[in-house]
């Protein structure tokens, strides 16, 4: 297998902190397949390591989160 390609496609790792979450819903709005909100409005992570198109949406969601509750782990 071509390891270089594999590395290039490596999915990103996401982390959601429900203590920081303020329930604005930007993540669920921006990346609905990756994040959701529970009945209290707090972030629920649906996918731990989104790939491809979902990864871009997840990045947008991280950027849009008003309280810094979701982040990309390096």
């Amino acid at each position: 297998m071509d390891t270089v390609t594999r590395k290039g496609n490596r999915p990103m790792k996401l982390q959601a902190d429900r203590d920081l979450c303020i329930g604005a819903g930007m993540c669920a709005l921006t990346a609905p397949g990756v994040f959701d909100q529970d009945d209290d409005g707090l972030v629920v992570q649906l996918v731990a390591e989104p790939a491809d198109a979902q990864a871009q949406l997840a990045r947008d969601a991280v950027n849009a989160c008003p309280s810094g509750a979701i982040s990309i782990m390096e």
Partner: protein
Amino acid sequence: MTVLDGLPRTRTCPFDPPAELASLRESTPVTRMKFPDGHEGWLITGYAEARAVLADPRFSSRAELSRPPVPMNMGGNAIEPARPGMFTGMDDPGHARYRKLLTGAFTVRRMQQLKARVAEITDLYLDEIERGGPAADLVPAFASPIPSMVICEMLGVPMSERENFQSRSAELFDLALSLQDRMAALTELAAFLAKLTKEKHADAGDDLLGDLLATGELTDEELGNIAVVLLVAGHETTRNMLALGAYTLLRNPDQLAVLRDDREAAGNAIEELMRYLSVIHIGPVRTALADVEVGGRLIREGESVNISVPAANRDPLRFPDPDILDLRRKATGHLGFGHGVHQCLGQQLARVEMRTALPALFRRFPDLRLAVPDDEVITNDDAPIYGVGRLPVTWTR
């Protein structure tokens, strides 16, 4: 260093922020500004700087630390701590306690479920406009009653009380009325919401106030005040976005066509309208709890900062060609709903209302046009939330 004397508010074009803000953003995105009480604080016009302040817990929202950025004509300048339940004027953990009780009621999913009902309400008012046509003032006929009816339903205002509730709400935000009349409307609304809260004890109902009551965590005073916050935050803002948004689109027919004809575009289009129009044009204000450096300037503990949302949302470093309205632009990340822990609680509701009502208006009346010259569409540079006072339109039957 020169100190700006007060927040620039005079516009030359109704859709663009005051020109002075743009030149400040270019030269000094964090600049000294004198507040009406004489305090030398700051004005922020840059996007990155605005976002940094709004996200930083060292900048407080506490009402008693804040200073009004424009002269207050409400009488009395005593700034008091936020009353119980008035969470917009609090910091965490007090603010978070209230917010966490409310977020479940405003999730993306709950608001999507309201979509069909918002569409019904919109159709109801569009039917009325059509019957009364071929002319209407879109402020009282469309922009004001739709958000007010949605709030009635969310709070659980009984049918028999809605007409009165909506009239008082319209008065509260009617700039043609005297301040005294508007404050009288607010007093009446607050008393009504306090009474409604008490009535929910006997008959909770399937609504927000009933649900909040059922948590057993809030006093009647807190509940009544929360209801006032939701009314004030949810009505005038959406009303002005609907009316000013309609006006903007009537003046930009190619963009109007995008919203009317491309159903896929509506979501993004609304974000761009929020960015472009930025109706929160006075404040928000934060006060530093410590010395904090922002954009290379040292803001000292105790100093107040006015963040200019209209200026930040037109920052070319964040949005290329910021003065062009482009409904297909990716406008996410705009500060129209704020940023940080106080970011608008009702934003997903506002999105549903705007995405539903504006396209429906232009689909119902494809040849809608202004019925008066631009100078008769009154804008008010001093209104707490920027918008138009009236929007007379006409169409061909």
